[in-house]
């Protein structure tokens, strides 16, 4: 092994440049992959959350841009056959629209908690306690927002200019709740009321305002069928079951993932070609040495193994450095964005494993052609080389 490492660094500049090629590829793979991993885990959390419920919005609204609904609609929805419970919710963006960033923006969620007995997505607390439906003026904060809001249990924080007491801090879920603040429905309604245009504000009372309903289906009732039924029987609403989430979000992220990994794959392809180039050059320079080794008894597998190991080591070094630089990049960007309550990267163990495994495999594959060329060298001709 020492001999192979020595051989690698006989042409230091060339080897370092080749390693740099792989480093860039793996760096891109780690950074892009971390972004994809974060998106995947968010989507996975969303899929789990939406799997057994129906989200009902105003017909004119969209998934992210909500229009106000009257809380009275809950009674109409409750009457639809197959509905177990209807939870009224108000969802407001924590920051103004001009500070929107990549990923899911930090949100304020207020609910009447009527769906709590049927909720399968459980939130654990890292510190403090959960808020109840009557904990006015109190909030529980998602883990990614702690730094942004400077939240400490028992202390007051300001949200949209109003003071709230932090009752609890949620444990990290790696999904949407990490960038959410939960409060009572009443508090959220007032906050939402304040966001409405001043012309409209006097015409509506805060306590009738909701942005959406979360509908829990009875056991054995398909939430997708229930969504269609609500749309049919309740006027002015648009319902979305788990399938709608899958169709809109999960499939879109699949395309995004392909683009991200595609960019990384191109970088790696370039790195792989540079290994082929370097190894071919090395073998051309070491033709005589290969002849000597064969003359003193080296078998095909010995020569093949030496050059494949060398190519694999180039891949490994490039992979480790690329992974480390990618990790530093992910850490720095996440740290910087944590202040805004929005992290966009997630460097997982499986991504680390794949980055290193992939770089070594790439090195070995790129080394096959030059190594094959090396084993085919004619001893007599090789020994004649100057």
């Amino acid at each position, binding site marked *: 092994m020492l001999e192979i490492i020595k051989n690698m660094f006989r042409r230091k500049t060339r080897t370092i440049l080749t390693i740099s090629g792989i480093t860039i590829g793996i760096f891109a793979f780690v950074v892009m992959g971390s972004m994809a991993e974060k998106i995947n885990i968010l989507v996975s959390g969303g899929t789990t959350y939406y799997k057994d419920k129906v989200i009902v919005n105003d017909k004119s609204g969209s998934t992210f841009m909500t229009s106000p609904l009257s809380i009275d609609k809950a009674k109409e929805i409750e009457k639809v056959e197959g509905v177990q419970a209807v939870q009224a919710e108000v969802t407001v963006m924590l920051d103004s629209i001009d500070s929107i960033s990549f990923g899911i923006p930090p949100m304020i969620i207020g609910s009447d908690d009527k769906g709590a007995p049927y909720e399968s997505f459980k939130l654990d607390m890292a510190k403090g306690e959960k808020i109840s439906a009557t904990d006015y003026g109190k909030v529980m904060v998602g883990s990614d927002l702690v730094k942004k809001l400077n939240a400490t249990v028992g202390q007051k924080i300001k949200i949209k200019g109003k003071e709230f007491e932090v009752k609890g801090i949620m444990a990290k879920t790696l999904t949407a709740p990490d960038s959410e603040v939960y409060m009572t429905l009443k508090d959220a309604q007032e906050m939402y009321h304040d966001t409405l245009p001043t012309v409209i504000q006097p015409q509506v009372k805060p306590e009738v305002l909701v942005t959406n309903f979360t509908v829990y289906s009875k056991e054995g009732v398909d939430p997708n069928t229930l969504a269609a039924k609500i749309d049919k029987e309740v006027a002015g609403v648009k319902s979305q079951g788990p399938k709608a989430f899958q169709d809109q979000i999960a499939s879109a992220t699949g395309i995004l993932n392909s683009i991200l990994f595609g960019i990384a794959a191109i970088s790696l392809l370039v790195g792989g070609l540079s290994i082929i180039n370097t190894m071919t050059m090395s073998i051309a320079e070491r033709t005589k040495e290969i002849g000597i080794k064969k003359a003193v008894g080296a*078998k095909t597998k010995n020569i093949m193994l030496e050059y494949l190991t060398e190519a694999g080591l180039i891949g490994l070094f490039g992979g480790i450095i690329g992974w480390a630089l990618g990790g530093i990049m992910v850490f720095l960007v996440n740290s910087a964005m944590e202040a805004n309550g929005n992290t966009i990267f997630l460097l997982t163990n499986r991504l680390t494993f794949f980055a290193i495994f992939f770089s070594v495999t790439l090195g070995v594959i790129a080394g096959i052609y030059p190594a094959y060329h090396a084993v085919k060298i004619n001893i007599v001709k090789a020994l004649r080389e100057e």
Partner: protein
Amino acid sequence: MNETILQLRKISKTYIIGTRKNAAKAQKAIQKLHRTYEDECEKEDSKCRQKTEALLEKAQDLFAQEKYEQSYQLVTGKMINPRPKDRGAVVHALNNVTIDIKKGELVAIVGPSGSGKSTLLNMLGLLDSPTAGLIFLGDLNVTGIKNKKLPEIRSKDLGFVFQSFNLIPSLTALENVMLPLKYAGIAVSKRREMAIKALESVGLGDRLDHTPNELSGGQGQRVAIARSIVNSPSIIFGDELTGELDTNMTHEVMELIQKLNKGGQTFIIVTHNPEVAKMCKRIIYMLDGKIEREKHNN
């Protein structure tokens, strides 16, 4: 002392350059007949073998006389038309060479450039394969052996010393000497021990960690000799091993070879240098791919 350890029987090496199609066809036919002959030798079918041997000899003679069409017809029974417009050349680097090497010999192969001595050494050392003929290492017919098995034979039974030492520049003297042992599958600790012993036997026990460029020419060649003797091979081949050394260093190296030969080691050396040849027990003179004559020194 009289045991034959290496035998070459009617070895030919021909290089066909350009488009000499009839020569290539005849060569192919002879090689095919040769394989039949090898099979018959293994089956000990003496009647068939004698018949094939006679046919092979005649075909090879015709080939050597550049009568390719007749040679092809003799082997296959089919006629081919002469191709006078074919361009290129047929080079007979070795032509029907037969040699017996006995255990403990110190043989010099001499001759002018292009006489075929290096080609002969490559055949003897199993670095190259003949166009026709048989090579026996002890009782083993190595001509028919598959290429996969040759490295094992080279790493255990044969040693090589080359003109320009052919040491690997990035390795120390010790690592260079350990190389054949590595390929022979010997454990690292044992390798080290054997390599140190070999280097000490050539007087370089104090140069273990020196790289080739830190050694003099004589020392470099002594490292190469240590590498060739480290696995106690049956035969060591030297190709112009004193070619790049001055007179003093040539004597130094040859004295070492004579010392090792006295210990029973067989050497076959290709050389241009008459002084080196004089120091060998047997001299084979080559000319135009054939053995011209032999001489034994007392």
